[in-house]
């Protein structure tokens, strides 16, 4: 059976396949090409992160409260047993002993007291030394390490001396243990000098732009708004005619630094179709200004900016 193949049909199919195939490739490739914008990314090393967080960690460690609690617990238990008379004597001694010599006189009576808590505290302390024993066991590997770090011992000693003056001795020790990789990185990275000084605000650049709810940059507008609101509460104009929006009164207000008026408000200008109504608006505004003082909320450090406050009173929203 012979099949007649139309050459034009074949050519048409081939052409369509070619066009469709080209379209799939080109369209799909374009679809995958997403217009990505380069985003500034700062790589923060663990060391930088540790420095950023260092303030908080050290702050918490500085509080030696747990030691006080341990000492306070045993005392109330033994005192509550019943040496009330002895406590009274202690109170007498406490009231008198301003200088240290007085405790020397009372140790005779106090001696029986401290031994008891010590006797009871000893069993509690006994397990602790047991816990310390494993610490002693730990000393062995350290001793072994010390042998390896004989060369490194001299540098920690001067550090301990410097720290002894300031008192934070412990921080240098962990540095010694994690010191090797960090120091290697510092030695290899010549840019470390600049990168190490980045602070949290510099690393998080968006934070420096401020929040939408932030008001730190609006200090001047803040006192203006507060002053406007304070005066507005006392402003009681009575005119609400059709032409109310044409009435205005410009008034300058001399202020003292304590928020009171330095002198009577000054009517600079009044505007409106009726002179009597405009004058009444100005007088109403003056009454409001005087009646609402003292404006004690005004920021004294910005006094120069509100030493003379120019205001305009209008009626455009009266109807």
């Amino acid at each position: 059976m012979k099949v007649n193949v139309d050459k034009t049909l074949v050519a048409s199919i081939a052409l369509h396949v070619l066009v469709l195939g080209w379209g799939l490739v080109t369209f799909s490739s374009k679809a995958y090409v997403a217009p990505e914008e380069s985003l500034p990314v700062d790589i923060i090393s663990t060391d930088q992160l540790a420095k950023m967080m260092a303030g908080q960690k050290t702050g918490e460690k500085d509080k030696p409260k747990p030691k006080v609690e341990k000492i306070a617990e045993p005392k109330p238990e033994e005192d509550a047993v019943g040496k009330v008379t002895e406590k009274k004597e202690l109170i007498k001694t406490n009231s008198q002993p301003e200088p240290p010599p007085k405790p020397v006189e009372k140790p005779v009576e106090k001696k029986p007291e401290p031994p008891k808590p010590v006797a009871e505290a000893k069993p509690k302390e006994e397990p602790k030394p047991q816990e310390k024993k494993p610490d002693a066991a730990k000393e062995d590997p350290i001793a072994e390490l010390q042998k390896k770090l004989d060369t490194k011992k001299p540098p920690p000693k001067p550090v301990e001396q410097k720290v002894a003056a300031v008192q934070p001795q412990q921080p240098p020790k962990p540095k010694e243990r994690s010191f090797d990789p960090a120091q290697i990185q510092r030695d290899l990275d010549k840019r470390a000098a600049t990168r190490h000084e980045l602070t949290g605000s510099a690393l998080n650049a968006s934070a420096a732009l401020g929040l939408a709810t932030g008001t730190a940059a609006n200090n001047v507008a803040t006192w203006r708004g507060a002053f406007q609101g304070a005066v507005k509460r006392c402003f009681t104009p009575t005119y609400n005619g059709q032409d109310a929006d044409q009435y205005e009164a410009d008034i300058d207000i001399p202020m003292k630094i304590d928020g009171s008026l330095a002198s009577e408000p000054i009517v600079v200008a009044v505007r409106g179709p009726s002179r009597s109504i405009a004058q009444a608006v100005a007088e109403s505004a003056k009454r409001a200004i005087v009646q609402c003082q003292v404006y004690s909320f005004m920021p004294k450090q910005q006094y120069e900016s509100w030493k003379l406050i120019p205001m305009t009173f209008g009626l455009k929203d009266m109807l």
Partner: protein
Amino acid sequence: MNRRRFMTLTGSTLAMLGGGQTFAQGQPRIRIDPTEFQPIPIAITNFLPGSPSDGDVGNGVTQVITNNLKRSGLFAPIDQAAFIERINNIDVAPQFQNWKTINAQALVTGRMTRQPDGRLKAEFRLWDVVSGQQLAGQQYFTSPEYWRRIAHIISDQIYERMTGEKGYFDSRVVFVDESGPKERRVKRLAMMDQDGANVRYLTRGSDLVLTPRFSPNSQEITYMEFGQGDPKVYLFNIETGQREIVGNFPGMTFAPRFSPDGQRVIMSLQQGGNSNLFVMDLRSRSTTRLTDTPAIDTSPSYSPDGARICFESDRGGRSQIYVMAAGGGQAQRISFSKDDTNASYSTPVWSPKGDYIAFTRQGGGQFSIGVMKPDGSGERLLTSGFHNEGPTFSPNGRVLMFFRDPGGNGGPSLYSVDISGRNELKVPTPGFASDPAWSPLLSSTAGQ
């Protein structure tokens, strides 16, 4: 109305321009535009009696002033029980701190003294409590029976000094007093002070009266009365009690109103099924036709300058408000309801200030009282209800009075409302009352 913008610079201002002003130029002005007003707290002390017999009149004057200012809605008189200081001499400055303590912004003191000739001497002082300055101080002499009017005049002085606008307390209202059962209601022409005192009846009630209107000098009233034949427009002289028919037209005449100069009366004249506007010169008695349409044109009202008139007409199929020149000509419709295309407008009246036209609007099953600008913009409904009708402006254009009929077996009563829609109050009348018309300020028309 011509309005002149002006700017005043005080002496201190000039000083500021020379020196201190430069300091203020460094920063923009802080602007305050309150959205609503609060009434001014004011302390009104009892007027001191010049003699023991003057105590009652002194207290009466104080009470009238307090009532006037309180009803205006612009003042909040402070209860005298809260007063710390007792005024014993109005010629000595009060201790302002005592009045600041009770939050008073203004203080009124006064004295009523009977003179040797029998007249009454009234003195008052208005103090600015905040600045400690006297804002106003006047004295008046009058017959003892006019002590209420003195109280109204003092009220106007206080109102004007504090708000900058003319007052409206020394004025009267003419209205239709209604009495008797609903099916046999007796309607008399009556007149009273704006606060409801001193009611006088001008007609006996034998004939029905409607639409009374004051003349500009408040000495005459024009109104429509149903007599033996067709209803006619009458002119009534308050002092003499005499009345006369305005014109001698074959048909019914109604809805009269004086021109601002008082020399003409504009009214409607019925001709068949239509009515047109006519104006009659009271001196020459000549009449002029202003409209000639196959429609009902009525309720004309002049603008304050007398150049234009507004009126209602159903020439468009429904009663609407039109404005045209006082001499006639092309009329322009100004009432277009945005929310109710079937609403109709009637009883337009032009404000004495010229800034608004008040009207009655019927639509949605309710009658409303509202105002709009003379060009039709800024329409504002002030009150709505079963039946509100017939607005009339106070002399200063700040307050509207109208009548309200609740329906049923009751009758209408008079109400007032601020043009902003606030402070709606019932006006005291001895009985039912309708169709009020406010007079001009009496003290300003005394010389006319």
